[in-house]
C-alpha cells in the first residue's frame, strides 16, 4: 500500500475537509508546491488559489483557499485558511456575479476572491 498523508483543511470557523490523500498541491507565495507522503516538515504561507488534493481512493478534491498556511509534519498536513470552500460548494453564478461587481467597483481583493473561486471550479 502506498503511503498516505492525513489532510485537514480547516477554515477559521469550521473544518472544511479531512481525509487521507496521496498528493496535495497548493500555491505558496514562492510558487506551487506539491506534498507527498514522507515530505520534509514544511510550513509555508499560502497565496489565495485553488488547492488540489488527490485522495487515496483516486478521487480529487479541489478547494478555493483565500490566504492561509500549509503545515506538514509526520505525514499530517494541515491547510489553514481564513476562508476555504470546496469546489462543490461554490455557486458559479454567484461567483461570476461577484466578479462582475468587483470589476466594476475596482475592488481588487474581492475580484481576486471571485477569480480564485471560478478557477477552483474550472480545475474540478
Amino acid at each position, binding site marked *: 500500500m502506498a503511503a498516505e498523508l492525513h489532510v*485537514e483543511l480547516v477554515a477559521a470557523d469550521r473544518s472544511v475537509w479531512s481525509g487521507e490523500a496521496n498528493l496535495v498541491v497548493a500555491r505558496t507565495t*514562492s510558487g506551487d508546491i506539491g506534498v507527498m507522503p514522507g515530505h520534509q516538515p*514544511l510550513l509555508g*504561507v499560502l497565496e489565495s488559489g485553488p488547492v488540489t488534493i488527490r485522495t487515496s481512493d483516486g478521487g480529487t478534491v479541489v478547494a478555493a483557499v483565500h490566504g492561509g*498556511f500549509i503545515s506538514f509534519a*509526520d505525514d499530517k498536513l494541515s491547510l*489553514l485558511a481564513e476562508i476555504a470552500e470546496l469546489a462543490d460548494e461554490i455557486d458559479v453564478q454567484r461567483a461570476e456575479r461577484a466578479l462582475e461587481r468587483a470589476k466594476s467597483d475596482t475592488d481588487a481583493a474581492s475580484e481576486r476572491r471571485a477569480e480564485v473561486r471560478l478557477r477552483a471550479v474550472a480545475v474540478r
Partner: protein
Amino acid sequence: MGAQLRVYKRRIRSVTATKKITKAMEMIAASRIVKAQRQVAASTPYATELTRAVTAVATGSTTKHPLTTEADTPGRAAVLLITSDRGLAGGYSSNAIKAAERLTDRLRGEGKEVVTYVIGRKGVSYYGFRERKIEDSWTGFTDSPTYADAKRAAAPLIEAVTKETVEGGVDELHIVFTEFVSMMTQNPVDNRMLPLSLGAAKEEDGKGEILPLFDFEPSAEDVLDALLPRYVESRIYNALLQAAASEHAARRRAMKSATDNAGELIKSLSRLANAARQAEITQEISEIVGGASALADATAGSDK
C-alpha cells in the same frame, strides 16, 4: 371591588406580564448558548493548528521577531476588553469590566501606559460615562460574532503592535474576556496575547510534543510575519465566541432568577389579594348583620 384589592390585582397583572417576558428571554438565551458553544467547537481546530504552527516557528527558528520577543522596557500596553451590547445579563459585563480595571491597575503599577480598546456597547458606555479615553471600540456583534468582526477588531491592534513605541505603538497586547467554563460557570479572564509566551502556548497545546524541524516557505521571518496577525485574529475570534457563549449563559441565569422572583412575587401578592378580598367580605357581612340588628332593635322599640 375594594380599593386595596384593585391595587393588588393590578400589580399581579403587571408582574405576570414581566414574568412572561423574562421567561421568553430565558428560553431564547438557552437556545443560543447551544449555538454559541457549537461555534466555539467549530473554531477550535483552526485555533489549535495555528497555535501549533506559531509555536513551531517561534521555537524552531532563531528568528527574532518584534512580536515574539519581549521589549526590554515595555512602555505601553494595549488592553482589549470584551463586553456585551445588551444588558439584562446579570453581572456579565460589569465583571469583565472589573477584570479589565484590575489588569489596568496592575499594568500601571508596572509603569506601563495603558491604551484601552473596547468591544460591546456596555463597556463603551462605562468608559464614556467616566470620560476615560478609549482608543477604539466596536459594537453590534457580541451576540453572534463572525470571523470578519474579529478581523476588524484585530486590524488596529496588530498595527499598534508593529509600530514603534515612540510612534504610538504598543509593546504588549492583553485581552480581557469572559471564559465559558460550563453552563453555570463563566470566569472573566485576562490573557497576554503578545509578545508570545511560548511556555503558555506549549501548555495550550497540551501534549508538550517535540516539534519537528520545519522547512519554511519562503522564509521563517516571512512565515512569522504572516502567521502572527492570523494568530491574533484567531485568538480574538475565539475570545469573542467564548464571550458570546458566556453572555448567553449569564443572561439565561439572570432571566431564570428574574422569572423565579416574579413567580414568588405573584404568589405573595395573590395571598395578600385573597386576604384583602376576605377582609372585604367579612366587613360586608358584619355591616349587614350590624345593620339588620340595628333595624330589628329599632322596630322592636317602635312596637312598645
